[in-house]
């Protein structure tokens, strides 16, 4: 018969294992809680500011008014409809502008001569604010969604172009030499060396482009109206419905943030091999 061990009483009296709260879990909670602290602080400051009536309610409405306007806009379908229109424009613009930036960035990265030829034009085009030529897009493409999609595509194009170019250029020459010595085909070089090497930088560009894409679509909506979140804000301004203006702005922010997070998740998935290697 096994004797109880005086030094280890628990071994003789089987009790429910003591529940511990591992440090890693606290860290996990903290990691999720920290990003919420800033919005919470802003919300509290906002509530404090409106309760003191520092500004009239039509300049800074109380959070409760904005919440009511949000519920109203959701229940009568105004917000979902506007969000859907802007999201569509953003997704199409992001895809078109992104693909063009990716392809052109790759070509410029591979062929410095082409970069010398195209760079002045691209930089000139990019350095012109979109709002300056957005009214022209209305003449070229009409007042439909095409002008907004184009604005969006233009604004997302440059970050992806630049990041792809940098990503391709930063591949170590020694690795390129290895592929050359092994007589790798263009496709093999692209899929096994260039894309994997440039992907982290390209995805960083995609993150920037994703957030900018909302600005592109909304600028188009501000210029030529129609539908979408930009139009919702304009209409609300002319109806002097400040809480609805806030709802529109927060929706734009939420949309941009969602796109950013989606790309971040995509990045986590695509770059799993990189983390494993480290």
């Amino acid at each position, binding site marked *: 018969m096994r004797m109880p061990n005086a030094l280890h009483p628990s071994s003789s009296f089987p009790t429910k294992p003591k529940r511990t709260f591992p440090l890693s879990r606290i860290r996990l909670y903290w990691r999720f809680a920290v990003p919420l602290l800033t919005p919470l602080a802003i919300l509290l400051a906002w509530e404090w500011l409106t309760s003191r009536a520092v*500004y*009239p*309610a*039509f*300049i800074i409405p109380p959070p409760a008014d904005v919440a009511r306007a949000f519920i109203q806009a959701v229940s009568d379908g105004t917000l979902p409809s506007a969000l859907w229109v802007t999201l569509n424009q953003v997704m199409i613009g992001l895809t078109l502008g992104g693909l063009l930036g990716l392809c052109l960035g790759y070509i410029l990265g591979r062929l410095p001569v082409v970069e010398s030829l195209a760079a002045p034009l691209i930089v000139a085009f990019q350095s012109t604010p979109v709002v300056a030529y957005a*009214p022209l897009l*209305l*003449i070229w493409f*009409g*007042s439909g969604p095409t002008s907004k999609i184009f604005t969006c595509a233009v604004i997302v194009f440059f970050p992806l172009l630049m990041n792809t170019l940098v990503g391709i250029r930063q591949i170590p020459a020694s690795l390129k030499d290895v592929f050359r010595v092994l007589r790798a085909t263009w496709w093999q070089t692209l899929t096994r060396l260039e894309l994997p090497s440039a992907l982290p930088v390209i995805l960083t560009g995609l993150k920037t482009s994703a957030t900018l894409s909302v600005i592109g679509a909304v600028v188009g909506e501000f*210029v*030529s*109206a*129609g539908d979408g979140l930009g*139009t919702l804000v*304009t*209409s609300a*301004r*002319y*109806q*002097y*419905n*400040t809480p609805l203006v806030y709802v529109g702005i927060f929706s734009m922010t939420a949309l941009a943030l969602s796109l950013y997070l989606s790309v971040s998740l995509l990045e986590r998935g695509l770059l799993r091999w990189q983390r494993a290697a480290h």
Partner: protein
Amino acid sequence: MTSRLRWIAGLILLLSLTLAVNAQTPKERFLLTFVPNIQFAPMYVAIEQGYFSDAGYDVALEYLNEPDVIDLVGAGQVHFGVASGEQVIIANANGRPVNVVYNWYQQYPIGLVASVESGITSMNDLKGKKIGVPGRFGASYTGLIALLDSARLTESDVQIVEIGFNAPEAFCTGQVDAAAVYSNNEPLQISTRAKAGDCGDVSDVTVIPVAEAGAFVSNGLIANADFIQTSPDKVQAFVAAFDHGLKDTINNPARAYLLSASSIKDLPLAPDFKARLTKLADEQNVLLASTPPPTRDDITASRAALRETLHKDFDATTLLQFNVLLNTIEMWDADVPGTSNLDAWENMANTLTAMGLLKTKVNLDRIYTNEFVPQPPASHS
């Protein structure tokens, strides 16, 4: 003292001097809409002629979107601005304490511009047509609905296209059959382009003014309601200065155009045109100084003669902005400029209610006042 300390002391001195200079000249911000334009000539005239400085105001003009004008005036950050009547009604219904103290436009300036090729000659021809508006907001949209309503049509009887503030481009590229615009301005631009062959298939335009559908309150000088209560003398002085500028513009458009040139950078003013306007402005001054003084009809006739004279010697492009001014003056001119009437406010409020833009009842009597409108001297006949 080290050289660094000397630099810092110098910078502080410079900053103090700058602040002192600024402190000596407090500016009265006056908010206008969109961009500098000849349609704001009375303001430019009042500034250039020193009417505001005589009234104790050093005016600084700013150009903003209409809702921003109303919000800043409503919040008391700025005392005066310009806004359209329907915006003032909606803004008051949504808690903005702004009142119209001077009804600048006596006629509603919005109209429907259509190409002669479209076959639109009256409100009854609008059914099924594509009509452009900047968006479903603002004076143009409200004016269009009022026009449709008078023809017993609704929004669903026409195809409304939202074209932003790009009516001439949308019109000339055939995106719309007609567009709701400021009838004193855009139709002239489109017509000039059309006659120059620069407006697609359009050879000329026709205009259907919203004013044909009834009297609607239009653009006026707005002031913060609390400021009106606490400083009526200052409001009175400001309005009187503006009124003086407006009457000068009505009486002598050539002089007003010349005076506006310093505020509008790209105003057409070639040397020969400037010389001619200067001569005509001097001649008009002689007429105004004559005894007995010219009547309102005499002055209206003198403006018509002025238009005719200039048309003989200058092309349409040179005269475009001057013609905009002449057209706009007709919308300001009245026996007593600046006066509001309740009917026009009620018509507008009814239209807004029918459109669903006005959901609460607004006490229209408290939105505007004629208290500050300078009255003509009593006749002693």
